[in-house]
């Protein structure tokens, strides 16, 4: 199937658009952009080319139009999809790509966030550390960069492991 990518102005919009499209049932993937359109902290959304207009209409309804749609002509970069868990006894740490999230197992309180280098990491840590897993804002809601996106993956994985 022919694929295309949706290019947005910033990573925050990609993260929001991913949520909108997945909720609407579209088969899409968040990927790395081809070299010619990389600026430094990028994500794009890969979509089936044939569904382009329907997908754009879904996004338009949420005020989230991409700045361009580009046909995929070469392999796109795959985000890291491996998780590593480390048990510290009373604490559990989950790593996704370059981000690590640690909780106190009994209370389910987020005790530390480490790794990453984008400026939303300290912001996310300030907002999340000290809160219970099910009460914390998610990185998807308040993060803006690839590091924030990686933290979302770690957050989802640790919730999968620890919440009923």
């Amino acid at each position, binding site marked *: 199937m022919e694929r295309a990518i949706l290019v947005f102005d910033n990573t925050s919009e990609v993260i929001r658009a991913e949520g909108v499209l997945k909720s609407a049932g579209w088969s899409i993937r968040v990927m790395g952009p081809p070299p010619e359109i990389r600026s430094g902290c990028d994500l794009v959304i890969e979509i089936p080319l044939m569904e382009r207009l329907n997908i754009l209409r879904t996004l338009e309804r949420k005020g989230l139009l991409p700045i361009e749609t580009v046909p995929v002509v070469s392999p796109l970069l795959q985000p*890291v999809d491996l998780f590593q868990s480390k048990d510290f006894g009373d604490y559990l740490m989950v790593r996704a790509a370059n981000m690590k999230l640690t909780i106190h197992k009994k209370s389910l309180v987020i005790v530390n966030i*480490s790794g990453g*280098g*984008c*400026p939303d990491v300290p912001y996310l840590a300030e907002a999340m*550390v000290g809160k219970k897993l099910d009460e914390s804002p998610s990185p998807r809601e308040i993060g803006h960069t690839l590091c924030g*996106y990686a933290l979302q993956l770690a957050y989802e994985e640790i919730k999968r492991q620890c919440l009923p």
Partner: protein
Amino acid sequence: MFAVVGTVPDEDFPLVSGKVTMDGDKICIQGHSVPVNRGTPALLAAAIKTCETLNSNLPFGCLVGDIGKGAGSRRLYATLVEQLTSFDSGPGDSQLKTDKRSETGTDLNVFVFHYLQPDVDWHNRILMAMEKMRKRPVLIADAGFMYAAKMSGFAAEYDLFTPDAGELAFLADEAAPHPFYTRGFVLHEENKIPELIARAYEHENAARCLLVKGKTDYVVDEKQIHATVDTPLEDAMEAMGGTGDTLVGIVSALIGTGMSVIKAAALAAKVNRWAGHYARPTPATQVIEIIEQIPRAFSRVLREEK
């Protein structure tokens, strides 16, 4: 004298520059104070503790608020590009130059770039501006700015990168534009570190020197592993946010005193490990507890060095 260029996690924090001090668990600059949690404030706090211990000049900060949207970083980049040459006591009366002269009285000869939005275009403009300075400063990059430096293809222009094992794998993967895309075959197990170091240099994606943070810290000079530091080992530090930032703060302050990059890197690795050890950390320990132990760690390491 060294300058630290980075961000604080408050969107409304203005662009400021000047001498940075510490008051309790906050850093202070130009009448503003910022809690020390992780990121650039943690780097600066560790640097200040180092300067106080060694009785050397406090860091000069160039800070702006940015919560990941990039607007603050870009404003800081633009201001730096416009005013960088003024750091070198050239003509002009920019605000940064005035701040620098009034507060430090000396030239800035070390620049540390830290938690900034990775942006290759702005990175290249900064680097070009640096090259125009009369005397090229020592250039250190960590976190987001290191990502941009690698992606730009100009990594070799830097004197020191300070990656952790995962970031080293990113440097070693010539195709990855961000650690998020490091390919699976570039594994970052501890026993692969020498291999990754070699690969990073092979593709010219490493600075002249590397300080690789991890279970064992590696100090690398021009492709050769110069030293390793692996004691004391506190496993919990892997989970703690900001322990890499403290290491960069210590090494930057040491280089700011005129110490060679390699000697500073080896010394900083030891001090950071001992500071962590003295804090008796658990995975819930916060980085300020380690920063408070830096003077004690210096006492021990300098005594041993003698």
